[in-house]
Every structure is written in C-alpha cells, then in structure tokens.
C-alpha cells in the first residue's frame, strides 16, 4: 500500500487554545481512514490544515511524497485534495453548477462554458442519486440537505487523490448515507484515499478501514481496526468507560400543553394535527425533505401558514408572530446553527441569554453578572469545551456551537420546546448530557417536540414518534414498541402503516 498522506507532529495554536498538539496521521491509497473524537478534539482543525484552509503552527504535511504548501487551499486542491467541510462552504448567490465548478470553471476561450458545466453538474448529482436537483437553482434557495449534496458533488468534480469528509452524514438520512457510501467505495476501489469524520460510530464500522482517535488535540490511538467496538472507541475518545446513553424516564401523564390543529403550509406541509402532553417527548422522524423543519417552523410562527391553529395551554397563539409564540412559551432550537441560531461574534454568554434578558435584567437594563451566572451553569451542564463562557461563538467547534444554541433554549423557561436535530454533530459523551438535560426539562413538565434523523434516538428516547413523508404525518408510533425498521418503513413509502393514528389525517400532497 502506498501512503497518500503523511501528517507528522502537526500543531495548531489558536490565540489562547491549542487545537492540535502534535498529531500524526497516515492515509493510504484505497483506504477509508476514520477520525473520531469529542467535540473540540481537533478533527476539523486537522483536516483544515491538510486542505490548506488554515496554516498549521508547526508540523509537516506530505502528500504523495511531496511537502504541501501550508495555508494555500489552491495548492492542496491542485494536488488532488478534495474537502467537504463541516460548515457548508458554498456561495449562496451562485447557482448549483457555479458552486460545483467554483475555482475550476470549464471555459471556451475566455468565456464560461455554461452548458458543459450544467451537463457535468447534473451528471455528478445523478451519481449521488439526486439527478432531480436543478443545476441552475440558486444555492440560497436550497434546503440544508441539498446544499450538502452540492458540496459533495463539488468535491467529486475534481480528480481526487485524497477525499476529506467532515461529518458529511450529519444532515443526511439513511438512504442518502447509503448513496454516499456507494460513491466512497467506488472511489476507494479506484485507489483514492478517504478521511471520514463522524460522530455516528455505527457508520464507521460500516465504511471505515482504520480509525484514528483524537482527544484534546492529541492522537490517543491510531490504526485501530474498523471492527473496534463502539464501547472501546468511546472509552478512548472521552477517556472513561461509558454506558447507558439514554436516561431513565418515568412515563409522562401531565395534561395537554401543545395542541396543533389542522396546521398546513403547502406544498411543504399538509394539514397536520397532534397534541403533546406536559412531560412528554414527541419524536418526529422521516427522511430529509419530509417537511419536519417546516412543521416546527410553522408551529413557531416563523413561516406563514395556509391554515390551522396552534394552542399552548389551551390559549391560541397568533399566527406568523414568532415574538408572541416565544412569549406564549414556545421555544425552537433551529436546524441551521450558524445562519439561524448564533451570533458568531458574540461571546457564549450573550448567545445563551438573548431570550431571557427581561428575566435576568433590572428594568430596561441588563445585568452582566446575572447573565454570566445563568449562562455558565447551562453551558457547563452541556459540557461545552473549552469551558470558557466568554469565548466567542465563532471560535467554538461545530458541535460546541450546537450546544450553545441548545443551552439558550434549555435556559429559557418555555412551556414547549421544539428541537430540530438537537444532537446533530454532538459527540457521544455530550449526547448523553443533552438527553439528560432534555429529560430533566420534560420531568419539569415541559412538552418537547424533537425532530431527529437518528432512528436510535427516536426509538430509545421518545415517548411517541410521528413519522413524516412528503410533508404529511403518515404514522404515529409508541416509543417503547417502535423499531428503527418500522420508522424507516413508514418514512420510505412502504406498505400502509399498521396502526393509523386517529388524530393524524392521511396526507394529500
């Protein structure tokens, strides 16, 4: 086997924090090398150094035997390093095909060969099982999952020697993950080396060849076989043995807090009705694009709706007024952190307390001390790393940013909590913290609606599960009795669901 990538003693120091403290990494031709580690372990920083996005402080990066010019993305790209970053890296104002070929446009003379690029773009997307995606669509108009596909297609648009994927599956659903893996296998078969980062350990067992574990910017284990058991991996990642992901919960029997009546927003959301009781955790499953986000947004009054109403504790929440929804006690942790959840150049404290200023302040004034106390407590309970509430949100790792957004809504004393993919990009250890906190809130009597693409989480953690398909609720399952297969079967139109929920009318898209 020939080594494609050799990383030696890689060090990256950010002002005030050492992200990487001498990491080694080897990737060989035709292998899928998995990187795992807690949030903030240094995975993204490592691959950013390799791709030239950030210059390393020290250390060498050799690609196919040649030293790589540090901090020059162009150099890495032309050397055959294609990267899918954790944060989406597209230009919203440009079309899909323009984004795919950004930096290496096809041309006729000085002019762009638009038709050629459009054709090739369609082809690439087709290879990823999404021939339907319009290459002329503006990326700004795409939903998150489709954007992910675009950056994937872009990575494949060059001739690749080393493919780096930073949590590519985070916003993909099972079928899309299968398609992704198929592509990866085709590439490895052709001798391409792959670095694969994920917090979903089951995936790693499926696709990976070798595993390297990072902790606090150091390599704590390398060359582990893909067959390494999740328990062992977790043990290595967080340094202590670890079991019992989902907390014990007593069955909820409060009275109804959230009522959704015939809420509709066509074409994304067909008429939907359901109720959530105090102390209950309602899971919402389905494929990406099923309209789960739309459902949450409609409930929170963030998008105009065609009809229907939302009641909290029996009182109707005025339509299309997110401020009144929040006032009525509806909190929503959105799907896209950076664009919808965070103020990147604020510190974490301000990010966490923004919804509770009236409660934490005196009259019209704010109270820095009170804010800091309240926020710090929340952030600690979610184990945000590094443990420094005054650090800017922009300086946090992806998963930790996610936790900050979560912390805001956990702090906010709301009656209803709408969580869109709350554990996306969160490491196993932290996941347990998140579940624990959510469970505590439920125990405190909140009604919780939780959209998730992780079937295990739906089955293992939720009291009830709504399954959506094409903008409609197609099934309601009991948390205890449901299985991942059942959810998947409903999500992909299989045979009619066994127990048709009385309160959820059949979809008519």
């Amino acid at each position: 086997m020939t080594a494609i990538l050799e990383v030696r003693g890689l060090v990256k120091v950010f002002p005030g924090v050492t992200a990487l403290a001498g990491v080694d990494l080897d990737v060989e031709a035709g292998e899928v090398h998995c990187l795992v580690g807690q949030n903030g372990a240094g995975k993204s920083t490592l691959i950013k150094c390799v791709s030239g996005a950030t210059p390393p402080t020290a250390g060498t990066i050799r690609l196919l035997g040649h030293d790589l010019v540090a901090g020059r993305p162009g150099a890495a790209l032309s050397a055959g390093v294609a990267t899918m970053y954790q944060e989406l890296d597209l230009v919203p104002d440009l079309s899909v095909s323009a984004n795919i070929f950004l930096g290496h446009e096809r041309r006729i003379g000085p002019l762009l060969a638009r038709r050629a690029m459009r054709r090739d773009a369609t082809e690439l997307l087709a290879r990823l099982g999404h021939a339907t995606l319009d290459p002329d669509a503006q990326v700004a108009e795409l939903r998150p999952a489709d954007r992910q596909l675009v950056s994937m297609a872009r990575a494949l648009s060059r001739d690749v020697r080393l493919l780096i994927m930073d949590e590519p599956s985070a916003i993909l659903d099972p079928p899309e993950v299968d398609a992704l893996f198929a592509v990866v296998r085709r590439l490895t078969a052709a001798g391409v080396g792959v670095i694969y980062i994920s917090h979903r350990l089951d995936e790693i067992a499926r696709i990976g060849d070798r595993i390297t574990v990072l902790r606090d910017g150091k390599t704590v284990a390398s060359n582990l076989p893909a067959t390494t058991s999740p328990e062992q991996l977790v043990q290595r990642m967080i340094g202590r043995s670890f079991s019992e992901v989902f907390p014990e919960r007593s069955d909820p029997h409060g009275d109804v807090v959230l009522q959704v009546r015939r809420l509709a927003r066509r074409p994304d959301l067909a008429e939907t009705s359901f109720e959530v009781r105090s102390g209950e955790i309602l899971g919402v499953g389905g494929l990406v694009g099923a309209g789960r986000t739309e459902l949450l947004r409609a409930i929170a009054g963030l998008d105009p709706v065609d009809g229907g109403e939302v009641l909290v504790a029996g009182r109707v929440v005025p339509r299309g007024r997110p401020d009144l929804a929040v006032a009525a006690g509806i909190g929503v942790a959105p799907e896209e952190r950076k664009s919808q959840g965070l103020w990147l150049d604020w510190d974490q404290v301000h990010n966490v307390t923004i919804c509770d200023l009236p409660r934490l302040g005196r009259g019209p004034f704010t109270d820095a001390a009170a804010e800091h106390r309240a926020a710090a407590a929340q952030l600690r309970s979610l184990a945000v790393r590094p443990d420094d509430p005054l650090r800017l949100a922009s300086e946090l790792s992806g998963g930790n940013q996610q936790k900050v957004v979560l912390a805001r809504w956990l702090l906010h004393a709301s009656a209803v909590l709408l969580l869109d993919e709350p554990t996306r990009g969160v490491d196993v250890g932290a996941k347990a913290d998140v579940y624990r906190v959510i469970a505590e809130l439920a125990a405190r009597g909140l009604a919780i609606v939780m959209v998730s693409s992780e079937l295990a989480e739906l089955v293992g953690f939720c009291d009830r599960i709504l399954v959506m398909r094409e903008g409609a609720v197609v099934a309601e399952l009991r948390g205890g009795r449901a299985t991942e297969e059942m959810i998947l079967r409903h999500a992909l139109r299989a045979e009619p669901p066994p127990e048709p929920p009385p309160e959820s009318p059949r979809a008519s898209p």
Partner: protein
Amino acid sequence: MTLDALRRMKVQELALPLVVVLLVVIGAVLKGTIFFSTANLWNVLLQASVAGTVAVGMTFVIATGGIDLAVGSVLAAAAIVGGHYFHGAGSAWFMAGTILAGAAAGAINGIAVAWLRIVPFVATLAMLAAARGIAQQISHQTPVGLYDLEALTRIGSQRVLGIPIPAIVFLVVVALGALVLNGTRYGRYVVAVGGNREAARIAGIRVRPIVFSVYVLVGVCTGIASVLQTGQLASASPVVGLGLELDAIAAVVIGGTSLAGGRCTMLGTFFGVLTFALIFNLLTLENVESQVQQILRGVIILGAVAVQRRGH
C-alpha cells in the same frame, strides 16, 4: 483566552485613542499653547458637537446594518421647520419643534426601511433629496433669523465652567448612547438584529420595530444637533449640513463599527468624531491651504486607520 480576548479588544479599543493622543501631541508640538490650551481643546469638542451628536444616533442605525444618508438635509430642514412654524412661540417651542421635525423625518425613513422594506441606502437617499428641497421651499432660500430667541442663542454664546454648552450636550448624548447601547435590553436587541436578523427573529425579537426605532433615534439626535447648530448660528439656514452624512458615518466607521451591522462601539464613535475634529482644527490653526488640507486629511485618515489596523 478570555485574557487574550480582552487583550485583543484592548488594542482595538486603544488604537483610536492612541491616534487622538498622537494628534494632540503633534498639535502641541506644532502650535504649542495656542493648540494645547483648554480653550482650544474645548473648542475642538465644540466643533465636534454637531456631527458628533448625529454620529451617536448613526451608530445605532449602522449597528442594525442600516445607514442614514439624510442627516445633513434633515439637520437643515428640521431647523427651518422649527424656525418657520415655532419661531413666535419662543425658544422652548422652537427646540421642541426642531427635534420633533427631525424625529418625523426619521420615522418616515424608518417606515420605508422596516415596513416598505426599501434598502436603507435608497430610502434615506430619497429623504436626502426631499428634506433639502423642503428646507429651501419653506425658507425661500433665505436664512431665518432667530436672534430674538435668547435661550436658544445662549447655547452658542454661553459657557458652563468654561465649557461650551454644545460640547456638554454632546458629551451627555454620547454617555446616554453608550449606556443604552451597552447597558440595556434595547441596545442588545439592536445589535442582535444587526448581527443575525433571522436568529433574532427566531429568538422572538420583533425585528421591524427595532429597525424602525433606530431611524427615529438618529432623527432625534439630528434634531438635537440642529438645535445646537442653530443656537450657534442664531439663524436657521437651508444650506447647512451639506456632507454631514459623510462626516457622521465616517466617524462611526473609523471608530470600529461595522457597516455590515452587529459589531459596534460607542466609545469608538466618540474617538472617531474627535479624530476628525482634531484634524480639522490642526489644519486650520496651521492655516494650511484648503486644497493641501484635503490632501492631508486623506493621508491622515489612512494613517490613522493603518495605525488602528496594527491592532490586529
């Protein structure tokens, strides 16, 4: 890293004061006591008072990612309106009328931006033209004398503890502005809206009223500035305030507030205003020819900002 964050902030915050100190030293060296006398330093603050008061309001507007090009015209129109309709009623009424007129103009801008969703640049550009036209239409292109309004003219003529009244008002407005921006919920919401509108909306902040309010706020500040101006001129003229918008915006931006919104500092604005006032004061004291003055002004601005950049 907190320490570091602080350090970085420090440099940012310290850079401009440094520039100011630098200018003062230069002045002291070049003109000695003529420049470095309390009299002249108050005079600098006096010079800064009109543009400075406007800049305080402008900081809020820019914090939301907006901009107000109309302040210069509104400065003129407000005083003309006040002078034309409230002259007879006495100083107090005149001041009230002028500030109200400023607020009204701001409210129109605010509605255009927040509800008609017109780009701030265009909306306020329209007001820039309209307000100037109104000022000239009402005044028939001739200044409105206000010598008889003692209380008003005293703003220009009198001093408290040797400090010109406009300078005092300016300092008070800056202090209030800083308090509101950094110390109140409203201020936080303003920055939130500028930093990430969608996130603000999801967090339950009513975006439009906030956006509307900052234009009213800058309108009020412009009204106050107009009173300070009129008090010194003892008359309201339709031709004052030309180019004021650039001065105010420049002071805010050089102070470190980002035109993209979300990042803003009232202290920075204050020092930004001082910087420009000092440059002007120095060049005039040196009686530099106007054209050379402009060249130097350009060079000094670049220099000042370059020094600031060193911070990073």
